[in-house]
C-alpha cells in the first residue's frame, strides 16, 4: 500500500492530477444533481403529451444500460492490462470500451430520433425539455469519453502508453465510471420511476 519514491514530490503525497480530477468529478455531481432535480421537480407537470409512460422504451434502455455497465468492466480490464504492461490486451480493452460507449450513443441517438418522430421535442412540454437536457448532457459526456478513449488507444498504438503512463488511463477510467454511475441514477429515476 505504501508508495514509492515518487510520492514525496507532491505535498500531499498524492498525484495532483488524480486529486484535481476527483474535485472535477465532485463538481460534476452538483451539475447532474441539479439536472436530475429539475427533471424530478417538473415531473408530471406537463400540460400536454407525450408523457413518459407513453413514450419511454424500457426494454431498449435496459439493453443500453447493460452496454454501458459492460463498458465499465472493459475499462477496468484495460487499466489492469496497462498496469501490467500488456499492450495487446490494453489496446483491445480500450477499443472495446470505446465501441461499447459508441454503442450506447447509438441507442441514445435512436431513442432521440424516435421521440422526435413521435412528437416529443425540446419545446413540446416540460418532460421533453428536462428529459432532453438531462440525457443529452449525459450523452455529451459519453461522447467526450469515447473521444478520450480513442485518444488513449492511438497513444497506445504509437507505443506511448506503457505502464509508466497508467495514471493517464486511471484518470480516463474515473471519468468513464462516473458517466456510468450517473446513468445508473438516470435509468432508475427517469426511466423506471417515471
Amino acid at each position, binding site marked *: 500500500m505504501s508508495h*514509492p519514491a515518487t*510520492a514525496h514530490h507532491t505535498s500531499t503525497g498524492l498525484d495532483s492530477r488524480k486529486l484535481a480530477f476527483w474535485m472535477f468529478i465532485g463538481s460534476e455531481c452538483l451539475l447532474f*444533481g441539479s439536472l436530475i432535480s429539475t427533471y424530478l421537480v417538473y415531473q408530471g407537470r406537463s400540460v400536454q403529451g407525450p408523457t413518459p409512460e407513453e413514450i419511454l422504451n424500457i426494454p431498449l434502455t435496459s439493453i443500453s444500460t447493460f452496454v454501458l455497465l*459492460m463498458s465499465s468492466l472493459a475499462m477496468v480490464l484495460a487499466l*489492469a492490462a496497462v498496469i501490467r504492461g500488456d499492450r495487446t490486451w490494453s489496446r483491445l480493452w480500450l477499443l472495446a470500451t470505446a465501441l461499447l460507449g459508441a454503442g450506447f450513443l447509438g441507442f441514445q441517438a435512436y431513442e432521440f430520433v424516435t421521440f422526435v418522430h413521435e412528437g416529443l421535442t425540446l419545446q413540446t412540454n416540460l418532460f421533453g425539455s428536462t428529459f432532453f437536457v438531462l440525457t443529452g448532457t449525459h450523452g455529451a459526456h459519453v461522447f467526450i469519453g469515447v473521444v478520450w478513449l480513442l485518444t488513449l488507444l492511438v497513444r497506445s498504438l504509437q507505443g506511448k502508453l506503457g505502464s509508466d503512463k497508467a495514471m493517464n488511463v486511471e484518470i480516463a477510467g474515473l471519468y468513464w465510471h462516473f458517466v456510468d454511475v450517473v446513468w*445508473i441514477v438516470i*435509468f432508475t429515476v427517469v426511466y423506471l420511476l417515471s
Partner: protein
Amino acid sequence: MSDQPAHSDHKHPSVGTYLTVAGVLTVITLVEVGVFYVPAFARVLAPVLLTLSAAKFVLVVMFYMHLKGDHRFFKLFFTLPLVIAVVVAVALLLLFGTVSGSPS
C-alpha cells in the same frame, strides 16, 4: 509530469473481483427491470428501485473507481459534493411538493 506517481499507490482489485462486480451489476439491473414489470411491487417500487440503484452506484464507485481503500482526500472530494447534491435535490423536491405529491 514525471514527478507524479505512475499510478495509484493502493492495490487495485483483481480481475476476478472486476468480473464478479460486473456479474452483480448485471443481476441487479435484471432485478430492477423485473421488479418494474411485476404489479405486486407497485406499492414499493420507488424504495426498491432506489435501493438497487444505490447498490449499483456504490459497487461501481468502490470497486471500479477504486475509492474503496483509496486516500481519504479522494473520498472527501467525491462524497461532500455528492451529499450536497442529494440534500439540494431532496430540498427542492420538498419545496416544490413533488415528494408529497401535492404540487405547490
